[in-house]
């Protein structure tokens, strides 16, 4: 067991983890942060995407011990209190989710994409989200939502 501490969604959390514990399992099983979902066991689906130090990471492909001392933002910590993140608003406005299972990862990957490229083309959005699979929406409205969020975030700068 290794002792780790990290800031998760703005709250200081700590605990003992086994060396093999994946970040996503630490979040879900130990911290009860079950908003982040697991869709595969081969790091292909992106459902588990969170931000570590502001950059998107598939939380099933990093170990909990690797985030010792770092800050993690999940879908549960994205909104600022009552104020939704523009990506969250745009996903609702554009109907960018159906069952919502891919959504935690899709939203976090979109946030990262827009941080990197505030004004992406449709092709750049599609390529940027390549690592996140959705079975419900056909991606059409997800792409629309990211474009809308980009416009919104650009306008508010």
């Amino acid at each position, binding site marked *: 067991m290794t002792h780790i501490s990290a800031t998760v969604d703005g709250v200081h959390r700590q605990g003992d983890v086994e060396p*093999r514990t994946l970040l996503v399992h630490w979040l*879900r*099983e130990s911290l*009860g*942060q*079950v*908003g*982040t*979902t*697991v*869709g*595969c*066991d*081969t790091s*292909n*689906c992106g*459902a588990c995407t969170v931000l570590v130090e502001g950059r998107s990471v598939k939380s099933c492909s990093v170990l909990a011990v690797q985030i010792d001392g770092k800050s993690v933002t*999940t*879908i*549960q910590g*994205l*909104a600022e209190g009552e104020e*939704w993140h523009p990506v*969250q608003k745009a*996903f*609702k*406005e554009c*109907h960018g*989710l*159906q*069952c*919502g*299972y*891919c*959504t*935690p990862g899709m*939203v976090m990957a979109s946030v990262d994409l827009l941080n990197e490229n505030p004004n992406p083309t*449709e092709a750049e*959005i*599609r*390529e940027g*989200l*390549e*690592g*996140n*699979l*959705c*079975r*419900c*929406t*056909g*991606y*059409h*409205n*997800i*792409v*629309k939502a990211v474009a809308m969020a980009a416009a919104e975030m650009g306008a508010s700068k």
Partner: protein
Amino acid sequence: MTATAETTDTTKAIGRPIRRKEDERLLHGRTNWTDNIQLPGTIHMATLRSPMAHAKITNIDISAAVASEGVLHVYIGADFPDLPGTTCVWPVTDDIVMSHMPAICTDEVRYVGDVVAIVLATDQNLAVDALQLIDIDYEPLGAVVDMEEALKPGSPLVHESAGTNLCYTAKMPCGDYEAAKAKADVVVSRRFINQRLIPNTMEPRSVVAAPMGMSDEITIWTSTQIPHVLRVLLALLTGIPENHIRVVAPDVGGGFGAKLQINREEVLALVLAKKLGRPIKWTEARSEHFVSTHHGRDQIQDIEIAATKDGTVLGMKVDLLADMGAYLQIITPGTPLLGMFMYSGIYKMEALDFTCTGVYTTKTPTDAYRGAGRPESTYAIERIMDELAAELGMEPMELRKKNWIKHDEFPYTQIAGLTYDTGNYEAATERAMEMFGYEALRVEQEARRAAGDPVQLGIGISTFTEMCGLAPSRTLGALKYVAGGWEHCTVRALPTGKIELITGTSPHGQGHETAWSQIASDIIGVPVEDIEVVHGDTGRSPYGMDTYGSRSLAVGGQAIKLAGERLVEKARIIAAHQLEVSPDDVEFSAGTYSVKGDPEKSTTIQAVAFEAFTAHNLPDGVEPTLSGEATVDPLDFSYPHGTHLAAMEVDTETGKVTLRKYVCVDDCGVQINPMIVEGQVHGGVAQGIAQAMYEGAVYDAEGNLLTASLAEYLLPSAADLPSFDTDRTVTPSTTHPLGTKGIGEAGAIASTPAIINGVIDAIRHLGVNNIDMPASPMTVWRAIQAAKSGGN
């Protein structure tokens, strides 16, 4: 009457693209997926699966696993010798060969993924660790992978005692095909392969079963589409009384038919929770999903069409081989037959000769997957229409126009006996062709062909209809399906004026909470926000037939309407009493009851709800409380239709296929929420395109699944798909009181032939007249090479 406009009446909720109520919790990670449930004292279950497609189990040694850290129990088949793992509710013929899938295999395994042992441990990882310590000896019995081989004498038998791998033969001769063929100038036949697909809901299956302590009840949370049906089946299979079982489908992360099932993990979790008195939890790993959740499609279709030389279709012959896999699950044998009535599509013909042969193989069982039977039939008819057009030298859309049912011919009883209530194929097609720029693309196609461009352009057409909204119970009974097709709703006005709408449908992404609120809002006149939709819990919604086959709105919507109307009528009697007039003198509009001719004298439905609660001043003979309840059996199926067009580019040098443009105009009648409708179309179209271009389960000769992870099985990402141009025409259904038709599966049903027809249209001049799905670069390149060298 067909319209293209969306509603502009802002006083109505129906017809408006209201943003979804579901989204707030889903967008903030405040959901309740089954795997999120952590109960004190939970025991984790892990399943050991057969690595062999077909073998005898000669020895099992569990001693090391039993002694392993955290392990509480290890069970093998001998521990539950009589417990079935699933059941089939649709024995389609009198002489069908049924199968028995044990909860845990006892002496024989029949597909890679069959369950041979389970471990119960205090922790999920420890349970999985212990699986590796179980030692099993197998004696191979011979895999049965290919359907045609399976039917040959001497093939290994999937079920030895049956003496055959033939599961059933179903025939439906309509009209006299041979007579029609005798009159024909042209007969075209093709063999189409509708390949095996792996559903891949993004949420893996998951189940938690727990005795709740305050009664004999065991609650089972499970990622299912069918909580109500499952409750009945679990009771029948386990012998646990139905009234001791509560099934809850919490937030469910996609279904597509894959969660229309009763699975051995659910049976085992329930039985073990009862036996051990502790919560049992199991969640499928994605790698398990690939082999253990049922697969879809998997048909070989021999299709023949007969026509006169002016292009009048006379008849069609359909001969299917349908792969059942190793066992029959809930509707395995019925799934191909859901398409049986639809092989004539939207066309008039005098004969349809249908035969389907179900075959056992040593592969994962097949069952419903988005569209279930109708994508296969639509693919067959829309593909063969293109081949017939080519044979006749006709423009494929012209051939369709010549043969389809005209808008003024509805209601139309087609060759298989279904009566299509309404439709307007002309309107949907005209709109689609206009959006597509059909004529301009034909001109471009000609120019590229003339120039010998290495990248050729093709236009793919699919003008389809489907039958959905399962269904009149009597019809289902006549088809030997053992359940009904009704749906239930209770609308309950609470004392504070808030509304609870309790539905028997069970959503997993379709937005029922929003759309059902819209329907009820218009009927009972309360705001959408004041209506809470309760679903997916047999403890709170006792009656239901659940969600599959695009039935939720088509059938469940009718129950909402009737239940709401009943509530309004009861409230009218109370309102009249309060207003001191006769009920006949009370008008109801937008939630307000007023006296005819004296609108100042009025009361609201919320006020009536409170009166019904206090019951201080109710008219004689009127019971306290205010609710309306309805169980509706539909009059008929629902027949949405549409025209889908795909512009496909094919690189003739590499075989690479690019989908340049996809246009679809669907007609699902009245739309409750056009935004949700459009989302359903997008998702369905994407799944159909995925079948046509990317996905396919591949087995080797030993019965090993080679495409057993997301790394090998190509689920398209955003980068693999374009945006879609969609629109709708509105031809209201006349058999459904809201005028609605189903839409959940339409996109998946329509899109595969549009894509493949487009690919072939691009390279037909090279001599290609068939491409099997998925149209990968390799497949297309090989087809071009084969055509060049004279064969195809």
